[in-house]
């Protein structure tokens, strides 16, 4: 049986990592449990240096050390538990796709410290949206994603320990041809790789590989191999070559003009050979364009959510470590944590006056429970109450909104109600959880007048910003026919009104507010569809259907 090339790549990457763990920082293996994944883990155990397993839920104390309470009490002096990070070595993290932003940041800091740590991420993500945090992946040199054939490989071989040690000794003496940097940087540009870590890591990988092959200088073949190991997973565009894959993807943006021009320059190194580019392009994941789309979408969402999306309350949700504070109506005491924080002080606090008390607790010991609560979503219903929409379907739309309100109530979402008509928008209901109020406002919603769509969107945008500041994640539900005829300023002109509306809509999309547009016109119109496209929102033409159906489709669009 011929050995699949990906298996060899994994072996080479591991060997390079064994030679220069501190410089290459680690690798990502993206594969669910499979023979090759097991073989990989076996190979890891034979890597030089200490190798430890960690998991995405690892606590700071385990990782960075902390006070050992029981030992401190027994010995009467603070005893620190050393954290795993105190000795340099290799960390292997299973289920790496579940790594949270906080742990990723801590691990990144650890890697940046250059203390000889390396990290292996065993990424078991099923879909493209499940992946370890990008910031962490960016720091690790290699990324291998075995395909079907490779998944069945049962053994991965590492070079003998003595060879690795000898290669490590040679590492400092490997010389690099002057045009190598130009080649690597030029290649990175062709694949749209922005981060400067990529060429640096490729350079180091090339050195390690050359040392492994008992060479004294980095050859072009080694450079190419290093680029093949480091670049494919970071590519953000497929370079224009004559490869057949390219033709199937006409929307691929061409590589930036200047990159090719500059690479041609006298000292910029050679223009990366088309053959080299194709060799790497062949290694790009087949679904790269889909992935890029998803990456961009999650990026926008992450940027939009930020600190606000995860709101830390202390009412419900996933428990978080408790922290000191004063109990109040909203905060509940965590008895165990409180006792634990009081424990080390018992001997010190004991005086003849309080000797009869079994435990002496001071206010400063009190720890409060905290929970992470993600469901503080704010649905901003922005309803077009203008004459054009009112006549047609406002009543129907009201029914749909009521059903959505009921659903929002079940999820304990907040809702706000904005209506726009005549010459401006009006906030009928500021963010609230009260379903009754929302319903009452809605049923008395007046209709008629012009359609100041832009003003409505501006109001929604302001509300969304405000909600973010208070830690809520806003979602826009816009009910309109899209026939804007009142601009933000000046004369009522349809063109200006539509232009204004589209500009504001694009602004909302940049803010990353997700949304749904329900087209309330009699016949689905191009205008509303345009606005939805600008908003980046799901477009739902209101069919001749009952409110139940609308609500169902809106819900799917919102959850999706």
């Amino acid at each position, binding site marked *: 049986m011929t050995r699949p090339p990906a298996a060899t790549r994994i072996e080479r990457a591991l060997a390079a990592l064994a030679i220069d763990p501190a410089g290459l920082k680690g690798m990502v293996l993206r594969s669910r449990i499979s023979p090759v994944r097991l073989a990989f883990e076996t190979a890891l155990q034979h890597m030089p240096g200490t190798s430890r397993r960690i998991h995405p839920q690892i606590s700071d104390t385990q990782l960075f050390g902390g006070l050992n309470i029981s030992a401190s009490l027994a010995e009467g002096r603070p005893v620190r538990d050393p954290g795993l990070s105190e000795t340099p070595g290799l960390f292997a993290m299973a289920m790496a796709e579940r790594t949270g932003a906080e742990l990723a940041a801590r691990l990144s800091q650890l890697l940046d410290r250059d203390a000889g740590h390396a990290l292996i991420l065993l990424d078991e993500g099923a879909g493209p949206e499940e992946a370890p945090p990008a910031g962490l992946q960016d720091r690790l040199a290699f990324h291998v994603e075995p395909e079907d054939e490779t998944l069945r490989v049962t053994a991965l071989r590492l070079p003998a320990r003595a060879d690795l040690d000898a290669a490590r000794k040679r590492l400092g003496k490997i010389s690099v041809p002057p045009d190598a940097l130009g080649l690597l*940087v030029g290649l990175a540009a062709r694949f749209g790789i922005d*981060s*400067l870590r990529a060429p640096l890591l490729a350079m180091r990988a090339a050195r390690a590989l050359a040392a492994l092959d008992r060479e004294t200088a980095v050859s072009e073949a080694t450079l190419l191999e290093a680029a093949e190991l480091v670049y494919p997973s970071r590519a953000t565009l497929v370079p224009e070559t004559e490869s057949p894959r390219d033709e199937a993807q006409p929307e691929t943006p061409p590589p930036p003009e200047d990159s090719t021009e500059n690479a041609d320059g006298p000292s*910029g190194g050679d223009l990366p050979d088309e053959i080299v580019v194709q060799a790497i392009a062949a290694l790009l994941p087949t679904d790269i364009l889909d992935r890029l789309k998803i990456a961009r979408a999650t990026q926008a969402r992450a940027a939009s959510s*930020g600190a606000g999306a995860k709101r*830390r309350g202390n009412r419900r949700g996933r428990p978080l470590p408790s922290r000191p504070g004063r109990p109040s109506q909203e905060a509940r005491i965590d008895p165990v944590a409180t006792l634990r924080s009081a424990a080390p002080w018992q001997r010190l606090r004991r005086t003849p006056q309080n000797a009869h008390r079994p435990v002496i607790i001071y206010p400063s010991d009190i720890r409060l429970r905290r929970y992470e609560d993600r469901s503080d979503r704010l649905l901003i219903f922005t309803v077009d109450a203008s004459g054009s929409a009112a006549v047609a379907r406002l009543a129907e739309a009201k029914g749909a909104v009521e059903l959505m309100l009921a659903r929002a109530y079940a999820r304990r979402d907040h809702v706000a109600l904005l209506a726009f008509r005549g010459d401006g928008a009006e906030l009928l209901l500021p963010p609230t959880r009260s379903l009754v109020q929302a319903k009452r406002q809605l049923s008395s919603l007046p209709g008629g007048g012009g359609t100041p769509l832009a003003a409505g969107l501006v109001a929604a945008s302001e509300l969304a*910003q405000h909600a973010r500041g208070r830690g809520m994640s806003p979602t826009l539900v816009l009910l309109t026919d899209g026939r804007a005829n009142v601009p933000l300023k000046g004369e009522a002109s349809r063109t200006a009104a539509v232009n204004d509306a589209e*500009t504001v809509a694009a602004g909302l999309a940049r803010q990353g507010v997700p949304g749904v547009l329900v087209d309330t016109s009699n016949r689905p119109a191009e205008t509303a569809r345009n606005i939805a496209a600008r908003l980046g929102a799901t477009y739902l033409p209101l069919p001749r259907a009952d409110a139940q159906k609308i609500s169902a489709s809106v819900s799917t669009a919102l959850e999706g």
Partner: protein
Amino acid sequence: MTLAFPFSAIVGQDTMKQALILTAIDPGLGGVLVFGDRGTGKSTAVRALAALLPPIKVVEGCPVNAARLDDCPDWAEIRSKKIVNRPTPVVDLPLGVTEDRVTGALDIERALTQGEKSFEPGLLARANRGYLYIDEVNLLEDHIVDLLLDVAQSGVNAVEREGLSIRHPARFVLVGSGNPEEGELRPQLLDRFGLSVEVTSPTDIEQRIEVIRRRDAFETDTDRFMAKWKRQDGKVRKAILKARERLRDTESSDAILKDCAALSLALGTDGLRGELTLLRAARALAAYEGAPAITRDHLRKIAPLALAHRLRRDPLDEAGSVTRVTRMVADILG
């Protein structure tokens, strides 16, 4: 501690370097926020600045780096009168840090073994007269951020806990860095930073090659590389020291004050903090460049740094906030 990359060897990123130098000249500017993509050298620059800054004179053993014995807090029980040179402190604030470690707390060891109440200073004490660096500031726990901003503004750290009542000076420059993809900062937090810089990776191939070349030389041939850049770093250090001396004598005319106000008004920045920072930073820049007074040219250079992060978002404007500031500066200053 590993060796820091030389500050002057950082390719490009001039705005970021300039902002950092300005805080070194006038620590009262209120800190720098560096936001940018991955792998653009944010952390490198801050750590490099540490190595570049001139040493400070401190009383030997003083936990808050006081310059004179009188300034040492009583609880530190300093007896030595010796003044020693120390590199400017740059304290890293790790994520997941506890309040105790930031503000300082009762010294557990002495409490347990000797039954004595004594204060164990935290990171804020160590950062006094230096820099406090928070990487991934957008991921830091809210209550720690609030605490830090509070202390950074008042310059005093007050600890009231475990029966202790301690106050000590904590004047430091807060440097935060982060990646906007991993979460935005609350606007309340944003405008507490004096200057803000957005960094992107260089798009010019030559420049990118140079970045890699220098980094590679630094990693593989450290000694020679450091020796090569030592003089450059020395020049920047001297320029900073000179600028500090000149700072007081650098004049600001009424016309310049009017310009500052007009800019802030036109951009609709909240509060007076923007104006004040703009003026102070422009003065630091003028001092750095050796100019006798602030000119409109200085304002032009500083305005994006001092004002861009204080703007309200405009749903009608597609341009980034830096572009908006630049546009407005061109309108008003001509």
